[in-house]
């Protein structure tokens, strides 16, 4: 990571509030989606935290995810300061993730359609995973 990226992460209050999760955002700087896998129960979960919410184990490994998923549901938020597509995506690794679908023709959105992860810089500084159509 270059020093400019490091400064952006340092300034992000969400990164500062979660020092134990810094590795996830450092990977996002390289456009890599890490998803935690529990070594005790073998399942992936989302979002990252210090323990597995399915079995309680703290024996976790951040794994580079495929970045692929399927649209589980979505809503086009129209009456707002920033019209956009709020969605849940079923990651290929298993968990549902709240996210946003970007660069999509809204009339083409279908539950079940394949999606691919992309990364977008947040106003606070870190990069967040968003999804776009995998068929583009």
């Amino acid at each position, binding site marked *: 990571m270059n020093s400019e990226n490091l400064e952006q992460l340092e300034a992000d209050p969400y990164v500062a509030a979660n020092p134990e999760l810094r590795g996830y955002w450092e990977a996002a700087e390289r456009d890599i989606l890490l998803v935690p896998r529990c070594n005790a129960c073998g399942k992936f*979960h989302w979002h990252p935290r210090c323990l597995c919410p399915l079995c309680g184990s703290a024996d976790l490994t951040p794994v580079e995810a495929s970045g692929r998923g399927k649209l589980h549901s979505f809503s086009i938020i129209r009456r707002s300061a920033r019209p956009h597509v709020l969605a849940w995506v079923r990651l290929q690794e298993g968990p549902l993730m709240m996210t946003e679908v970007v660069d999509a023709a809204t009339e083409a959105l279908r539950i079940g359609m394949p999606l691919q992860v992309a990364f977008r810089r947040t106003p606070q500084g870190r990069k967040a995973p968003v999804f776009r159509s995998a068929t583009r």
Partner: protein
Amino acid sequence: MHTSISPSARACIAGAYEHPTRFAPDRSVAQLHAECAAGALADAGLSMSDVDGYFCAADAPGGIAALMVDHLGLDVRHVDGTESGGCSYVRHVGLAAQAIAAGKCNVALITLAGKPRSSGQATGTEFRALPPVQPAAAWEAPYDWSITGIFGNVARRHMHVHGTTSEQLAWVKASASMHAQHNPQAFLRKPISVQDVLDSPMVADPLHRMDCCVINDGGGALVLVSAAIARSLQRPVIEVAGSGYAVATNRGGHFAMLQTGTLASGARAFAEAGMVPADVQYASLYDAFTIMVIMQLEDLGFCASGQGGRYVAEGRIVAGQGRVPVNTDGGGLCNNHPQNRGGMTKVIEAVRQLRGEARPPVQVKDCSVALANAQGMAFGMGHSTATVILERTR
């Protein structure tokens, strides 16, 4: 294993008060709480000096229960500021009943108030400000979720899985408006048709503007008392027959979007009451959005899973038509949604029905068992639900 509390020991709702205001720029939030407290105590035939237990949630000014105890000048021996979002007050009924059964207090006051209308809140459409310390905030804040956008996702999933339609959703609003036209205090009194809902602007599809509740100032209060005190008052005796609370978690992304915490909180309340859905004659179901009512009907067992849309489109939640009318005050969709928190008014209308004090055109005949159910936070993420079952015994 649930153990039913013996009927003679059940706590009772002796006082209920819905503030008549829907717009109160001239009053403080603390004053609204105080007016609600006085209203519910007068309804019970009690006074501030009788109160020995106080319950409130985060809407209490300053967010700390002791500050309202001080403001009201209460002399209490039990205080509970449990915050569970919109279902807080339904949960407080259960918590107050437990406190009374444990001898911690005999007269419990629960208050709610707020001013989202006069403070200009766009409750459903503004992006939630998520404090960085909130556990999931870092992973939700980038997507600018609004509460309408969340329930838009839930509604679309329900349509996809169960074939629910926009017309069926609209039936929930139309049913509420059929009730609200008889309520002189309702925020929206004009009857609304299914077509009116479909013609209203899309806010977060598939939810139209009229699939959403009203935003208004106001409040309400309840007074719970021990069985002995209830029998000494000149009021119908409304017992808390059962209560349940649940937190439905996101399970690390392994959750079913269409199953809510009401599955568990409802089952707990029915078990404690020793009752089944067929025993219930009236139901108050939190209706911030039309889809919520459909999902509660399913999760509480009033209809089969996935059949909620068809159920409401058959007119089965309308007073005089369905076996179990729902939200006969007009609900949050048409009547009142003080401080964007639905739990309080849900209990109040259930008490009216049990006392025979609902508006005559919507009164359920000989209503002796009623249910109130509400959620806090949003489906699809960690959320709270609370259920109470109330029974009139005198």
